[in-house]
């Protein structure tokens, strides 16, 4: 009972710390933003970037209308707001805004035609470059072009729909906490598939409920926390670290033993990166045990052997006992 109170006390302290840090974060954003001491990375372009982020880094922007002699304040469109902290933790954190966006944006008010600016896609920078060869960007692109996302929406869909250029960071390759990586990766899918307003930008289909669609899945919430959507919704590729061939919903994995088996597909997807860490302890697919436990995929070879030996010992005793009974044909003496 005391232990329970101690846990509640610790939880309250943690909640309190979280609220304090959130409110501290808001205060920082109201002032002129400076790289925090605690952030390991400080962009050498952070001052240049502030020229953009002083407006695009907050909910409102303000400018002076010289002809009328008044200050005008507007709300910033939510899709044009860039979260500084998230940007400076992303894969593209070392860029300055004008590496990808036109220098013309440095002028304010921005010229209207800049809205038609052609955006880069991944291959424009990462394609055919030996530096990025290990990531197989070309193969990712070829898989993506076969995927249902591209097939259904050739014009509207781009890499950026899933990999936000300002915030995206590779997670699974460097993960130290697989659960967080799973939540991060699933949030990419859910950003459209559980937000109909965003979904409608790309599709005319009716709204679906992810929860209802996965009604058939036992222990639904446990599955959602422990595996990524792409485990079942992509076709695994041996040469790619993360498969990008999103399949039509009818081709999604529905058979439990695809994962719950000795030759579980999770070893070719979610645990592909970790399979080098040979945690065995007699467990089949033992590397999973660092993070999770999968019935059917994590049976223990030692226990299997011991149980078989015990089973046959019992069977042997019964056979010997029966043989003696038959041989002797003995009945207990009557009183």
């Amino acid at each position: 009972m005391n232990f329970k109170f101690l846990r509640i006390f610790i939880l309250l302290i943690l909640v309190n710390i979280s609220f304090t840090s959130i409110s501290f974060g808001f205060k920082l954003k109201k002032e002129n933003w400076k790289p925090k001491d605690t952030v390991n990375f400080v962009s050498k372009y952070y001052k240049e970037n502030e020229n953009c982020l002083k407006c695009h880094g907050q909910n409102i922007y303000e400018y002076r209308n010289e002809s009328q002699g008044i200050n005008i304040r507007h709300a910033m469109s939510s899709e044009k707001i860039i979260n500084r902290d998230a940007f400076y933790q992303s894969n593209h954190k070392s860029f300055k805004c004008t590496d990808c966006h036109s220098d013309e944006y440095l002028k304010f008010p921005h010229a209207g035609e800049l809205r038609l600016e052609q955006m880069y896609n991944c291959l424009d920078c990462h394609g055919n470059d030996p530096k990025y060869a290990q990531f197989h960007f070309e193969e990712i692109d070829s898989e993506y072009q076969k995927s249902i996302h591209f097939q259904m929406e050739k014009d509207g869909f781009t890499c950026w729909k899933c990999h936000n250029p300002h915030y995206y960071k590779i997670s699974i390759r460097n993960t130290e906490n697989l659960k967080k990586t799973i939540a991060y990766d699933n949030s990419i899918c859910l950003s459209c598939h559980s937000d109909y307003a965003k979904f409608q930008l790309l599709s005319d289909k009716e709204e679906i409920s992810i929860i209802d669609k996965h009604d058939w899945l036992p222990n639904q919430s446990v599955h959602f926390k422990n595996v990524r959507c792409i485990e079942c919704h992509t076709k695994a590729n041996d040469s790619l670290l993360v498969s990008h061939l999103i399949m039509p919903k009818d081709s999604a994995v529905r058979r439990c033993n695809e994962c719950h088996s000795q030759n579980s597909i999770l070893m070719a997807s979610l645990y592909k990166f970790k399979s080098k860490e040979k945690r065995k302890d007699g467990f089949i697919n033992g590397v999973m045990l660092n993070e999770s436990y999968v019935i059917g995929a994590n049976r223990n070879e030692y226990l299997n052997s011991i149980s078989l030996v015990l089973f046959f010992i019992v069977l042997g005793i019964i056979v010997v006992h029966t043989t003696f009974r038959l041989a002797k044909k003995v009945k207990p003496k009557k009183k």
Partner: protein
Amino acid sequence: MSHKLYLYPKWIRLWHLFNALLFLTLIITGISMQYTDKESANTFIIKFDRSVAIHNFAALLLTLNYIIFVTGNVLTKNRIHYRINWKTIWKDLLIQFKYYAYGMFKGQKHPFPVTETTKFNPLQKFVYVLAMFVGLPLLIISGVGLLFPEITIKGIFGVSGLILTDILHITTGFFLSLFMIIHIYTCTLGSKPLTLFKSMITGYHESDDEH
């Protein structure tokens, strides 16, 4: 000359029958889940998803049946058969063991004849208490832990709580399965191989100085 003793009232016979059928179902579906294979052709006995559904349902019924068993023993005199005499138990167990190991082949008398107050011999009593009041509760508790993984302890000394819960569940399940095999075999040790099976249908034990 043999005479009959009414030792197994209807509620015990019904409980025992359901317990046996449910336990058999749980063994088959449990093995199917443990040894599942990706190739459906190699799936062990029953498909994984079907095994999970049947296992969960049978486990729920087994738990309810267990509650009936405990309640029945609290409310009726049947509980006297599960009282172990701790002063003599180890000596009695050895006597009974010796009888099964070689005494019965030498035509010795049964050391603990069945009476109205001693339905079980010491070995039966000890094993039944172990199975029903240690094994089955452990199996049910660990099973609940696996059925609701979100309530299971996250980990103990760096080892996932789910692994420990599962190992406890399958190990207990395995030993209770061995118990079931031995139990069925020892039931052939009556005056005739089928006598004791008949008792669990009629409720009458044929007292012939045997098992």
